[in-house]
C-alpha cells in the first residue's frame, strides 16, 4: 500500500489491477465520489478502515465527533448546505446503534447520507460476538437502502450503488455494514465505476404530458391559486425554475420549514410559513383558495392540521418525485409526478402570465392582522423580559439574511423559522420531520464544513443544547467556526406551552436547569458571553458574529412565552389561533 500512496493520483481508474485491501478500496471509492469530509468515530470493528485513513489525510478530512449521533447530524448539516452526500463512519454495536436517530432524521427529511459501519468478522455473525449488533435489521426502517458486505470484492460496486441511491430521486440515507474481514481482505482492485442505473430502482418517474396539461389548465382558470412548496424545490436544485413559475403565474407561495429559503424571504410572492406555527394568511387561505399547487412537499400533519377539513374546496395539484407521496395524505386531482426541475418549466411554458392582485392583497390583510396581534410585540417588545423573536430580529439586522441558520427543535425552532430572513437557498437547516432535539449543534458543525464561506449560526434551546453539548469538543478540536446562540427560557418550552394550553398548566417535568453555558464553552476554549439585559443584546450579537472563531452566546429570554399563531392539534388550519 505504500507504493500506492507514493503516487499522486488516486486509483479511480488504474491501468491494470492493483492489490489493495477492502479498506483502501472503500477510501478510493469515497474520493472518486467527490467526498472530502467524513464525520466519524473509530472503534474495534472499523479499525482497518481507520488504519487506511491514516494514509489518506491529504485527500479526506476526518472530523472526530464526540458521539456517533453527532456524526450523523453533522453529515446531515453538511449535505443540506452543500447539496452533496454526507458521510459518517461508526464502529459496530453501540457505534452503529448510535446512528439510528440521525438515520431516521435523514430518512424523514430526505437527506442524502452514506453511513459506513464496521461489523464483526463474518464468521462471527450471529454468535453474539463482542460489539455485534444486527445493524442491517435495526436500520432497515430508517434507511432508503442498506447492505452488508462480507467480501472485499463487493466494496467498489456496493459503494457506487450506495451513493447513487442516496443522492438520486428522492434522496435519503444509506448504510453499508462492512465486516472486519472484508476491510482487511486483499483483492485485485479494478478501479471505481460510478453507478448510473439499477434495474429495480426508478429514481424519477416518467413525466406524463397529460397531467402537465391538466395542471396548466387548472392553474390558468384559477381565481385564487395558492402554491405550497417544500424541500423538494431545494433537493431538485429547482429554485430558479420555481421562481420563474410563480413569477409568471403571479401565484402567492407559502413554504414548509424545510422549503424556507428556496425563494428569498422578501420576494413579493413569498407569503410566509405554513403549518402549526406558520403564518396566519397561508393557513387560513389554504381553506379559501380554489387551486392548491403543492410542490415538493408531503402534507405532513403539522402542515395540514385536521385532514378532513383541509382545503376541501380546492382542486389539488401535487408535484412530487416520489409517486408514493401522491394521494398519501391529501388526494390530488392532478398528480404531476416527476423531478420538479423538469416538470416546473413544462408547467411554466403552458401557464399564462397573470397577476392575482386582489387575491394577494387578501394575504397582505392577514399579514397586517398577524403583525398587530403577534409579530410586533414578539419582535419589538420594548420592555419586560426579552423575547426569542427580538433576538432573531436583531440577528437579521446584523447578518442581513445572509447567514445559514441551523436550529434545534422546540419553541426557538419555530421562532427562528418564522422570523429568520433568508436571501439564499440552503440556509435553513432544521430537523423537520423527526423533530430531533440535539440536532442543532452537530448539524451546525456539518453545515459549516458544507458551506465554509458562509456564517453559520446555530440557534438552540437550553434543553436541546444539553442533549448533544459534548460536540463542543468537536468544535474545539476541529477549529470549525460556528456561532452558537442559546435562547435560554429555563423550560422545555414547547412542551410547557402545550401543558399550559391543553393540560391546565400542569408543568410536568419541563422545568430544566442548566449548567453555566459560558463556563462550559470556556472549558472547551470557546469564547462566550451571557446576556440578560436588552440593552446588551445588539452588541453581544455583533461580538459573536465578529469573533474570529466559534462563539457561544447565551441569551436569557422570557420564561413563559408562547409561540403564536398556533393551529391546535386536531384543529383545521383555518382555525389557527392568534393568541
Amino acid at each position, binding site marked *: 500500500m505504500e507504493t500506492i500512496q507514493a503516487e499522486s493520483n488516486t486509483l479511480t481508474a488504474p491501468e491494470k489491477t492493483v492489490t489493495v485491501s477492502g479498506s483502501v478500496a472503500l477510501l478510493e471509492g469515497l474520493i472518486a465520489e467527490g467526498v472530502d469530509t467524513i464525520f466519524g468515530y473509530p472503534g474495534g470493528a472499523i479499525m482497518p478502515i481507520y488504519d487506511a485513513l491514516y494514509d489518506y489525510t491529504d485527500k479526506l478530512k476526518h472530523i472526530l465527533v464526540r458521539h456517533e449521533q453527532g456524526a450523523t447530524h453533522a453529515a446531515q448539516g453538511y449535505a443540506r448546505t452543500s447539496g452533496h452526500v454526507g458521510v459518517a463512519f461508526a464502529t459496530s454495536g453501540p457505534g452503529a446503534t448510535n446512528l439510528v436517530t440521525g438515520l431516521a432524521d435523514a430518512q424523514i427529511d430526505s437527506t442524502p447520507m452514506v453511513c459506513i459501519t464496521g461489523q464483526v468478522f463474518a464468521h462471527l455473525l450471529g454468535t453474539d460476538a463482542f460489539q455485534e449488533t444486527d445493524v*442491517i435489521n435495526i436500520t432497515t426502517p430508517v434507511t432508503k437502502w442498506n447492505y452488508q458486505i462480507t467480501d472485499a470484492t463487493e466494496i467498489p460496486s456496493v459503494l457506487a450503488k450506495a451513493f447513487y441511491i442516496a443522492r438520486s430521486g428522492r434522496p435519503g440515507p444509506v448504510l453499508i455494514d462492512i465486516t472486519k474481514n472484508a476491510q482487511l481482505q486483499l483483492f485485485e482492485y479494478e478501479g471505481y465505476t460510478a453507478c448510473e442505473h439499477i434495474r429495480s430502482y*426508478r429514481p424519477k418517474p*416518467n413525466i406524463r404530458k397529460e397531467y402537465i396539461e391538466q395542471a396548466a389548465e387548472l392553474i390558468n382558470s384559477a381565481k385564487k391559486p395558492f402554491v405550497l412548496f417544500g424541500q423538494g424545490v431545494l433537493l431538485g436544485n429547482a429554485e430558479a425554475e420555481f421562481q420563474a413559475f410563480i413569477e409568471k403565474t403571479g401565484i402567492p407561495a407559502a413554504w414548509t420549514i424545510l422549503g424556507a429559503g428556496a425563494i428569498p424571504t422578501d420576494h413579493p410572492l413569498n407569503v410566509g410559513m405554513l403549518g402549526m406555527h406558520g403564518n396566519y394568511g397561508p393557513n387560513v387561505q389554504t381553506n379559501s383558495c380554489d387551486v392548491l399547487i403543492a410542490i415538493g412537499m408531503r402534507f405532513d400533519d403539522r402542515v395540514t392540521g385536521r385532514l378532513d377539513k383541509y382545503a376541501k374546496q380546492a382542486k389539488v395539484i401535487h408535484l412530487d418525485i416520489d409517486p408514493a407521496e401522491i394521494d398519501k395524505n391529501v388526494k390530488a386531482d392532478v398528480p404531476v409526478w416527476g423531478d420538479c426541475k423538469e416538470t416546473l418549466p413544462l408547467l411554466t411554458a403552458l401557464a399564462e402570465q397573470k397577476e392575482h392582485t386582489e387575491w394577494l392583497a387578501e394575504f397582505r390583510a392577514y399579514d397586517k392582522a398577524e403583525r398587530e396581534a403577534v409579530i410586533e410585540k414578539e419582535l419589538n417588545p420594548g420592555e419586560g423580559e426579552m423575547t426569542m423573536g427580538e433576538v432573531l430580529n436583531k440577528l437579521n439586522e446584523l447578518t442581513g439574511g445572509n447567514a445559514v441558520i441551523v436550529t434545534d427543535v422546540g419553541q426557538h425552532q419555530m421562532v427562528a423559522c418564522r422570523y429568520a430572513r433568508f436571501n439564499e437557498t440552503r440556509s435553513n437547516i432544521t430537523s423537520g420531520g423527526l423533530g430531533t432535539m440535539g440536532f442543532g449543534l452537530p448539524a451546525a458543525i456539518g453545515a459549516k464544513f458544507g458551506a465554509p464561506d458562509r456564517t453559520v449560526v446555530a440557534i438552540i434551546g437550553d434543553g436541546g443544547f444539553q442533549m448533544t453539548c459534548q460536540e463542543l469538543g468537536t468544535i474545539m478540536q476541529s477549529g470549525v467556526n460556528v456561532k452558537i446562540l442559546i435562547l435560554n427560557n429555563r423550560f422545555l418550552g414547547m412542551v410547557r406551552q402545550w401543558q399550559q394550553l391543553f393540560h391546565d398548566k400542569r408543568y410536568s417535568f419541563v422545568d430544566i436547569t442548566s449548567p453555566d453555558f459560558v463556563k462550559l464553552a470556556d472549558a472547551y476554549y470557546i469564547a462566550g458571553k451571557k446576556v440578560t439585559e436588552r440593552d446588551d443584546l445588539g452588541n453581544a450579537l455583533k461580538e459573536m458574529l465578529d469573533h474570529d472563531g466559534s462563539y457561544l452566546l447565551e441569551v436569557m429570554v422570557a420564561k413563559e412565552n408562547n409561540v403564536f399563531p398556533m393551529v391546535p392539534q386536531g384543529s383545521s388550519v383555518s382555525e389557527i389561533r392568534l393568541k
Partner: protein
Amino acid sequence: MSNSNETDNGKQEFTITAYTENRIGILNRIAIIFSRRKINIESLNTSPSEIEHIHRFNIVIHETEEVVSKLARQIEKQVEVLKVYYNRNEDIIWQEMALYKVPTDVIAEKVLVERLLRENGARVVVIRKDYTVFETTGHREETDKLIEVLQPYGLIEFVRSARVAIIKDSEGFNRKLREFERREPGEEVIENEYLDQPKNVFSM
C-alpha cells in the same frame, strides 16, 4: 366463484403481487411496511419467478382498497422491488396446497378412500404402514373441507401452503423486465399504473 368477502367497513381480501430482486433483506423491507401500520399478512408466498434472479411475492391482506393502493406504492418504492400489482379475488386465479397426515389403519378400515379422494380432488402422496399423506389444492374452503372430513379419522398433522395467484389479465413480466433494464425506459414502464386510472381505483 366470487370471493370478494366484502365486509361492512369496506375491507376485503386483496392479493398483492410483487416482483423483486433476489436479495437478502428484501423480505424484511416488505414485511415491515405492513407491520409498521399494524396490518396483518394473512398469507405470504415468495419464490423464484419465471425469470432468473427475480422473485415473486404473493401477499394476501384484508384491507380497504385505499390502504392497499398506498401499501403497493410503498412496496414499489423499495430500491430492490421492480413492480407491484394488487388485485381483488375476482381478478386472479389462485390456489393453496394442503397436506394431511392420517393413520393408515383407520383410513384403510373405516373410510372409502377412493370416494374420499375423488370427492375432494385429493391424491395420495405417501402410504406407509403407520400413516398416509393426502394432498389437495384449492381455495381455502376446499382445503378446510377435507380437514373436516378427515378429523374424525384421527388427522395427525395438517399443513397448508400460502396462496399462489395468477393475475387474469397479466401478460407476464418478461417484456416489462427488458424495459426496466433499459436506462431510458419507454412507455412500457408505467409507475403506479393504478394512478393512471384514478376513476377505477379511487372511487370508494
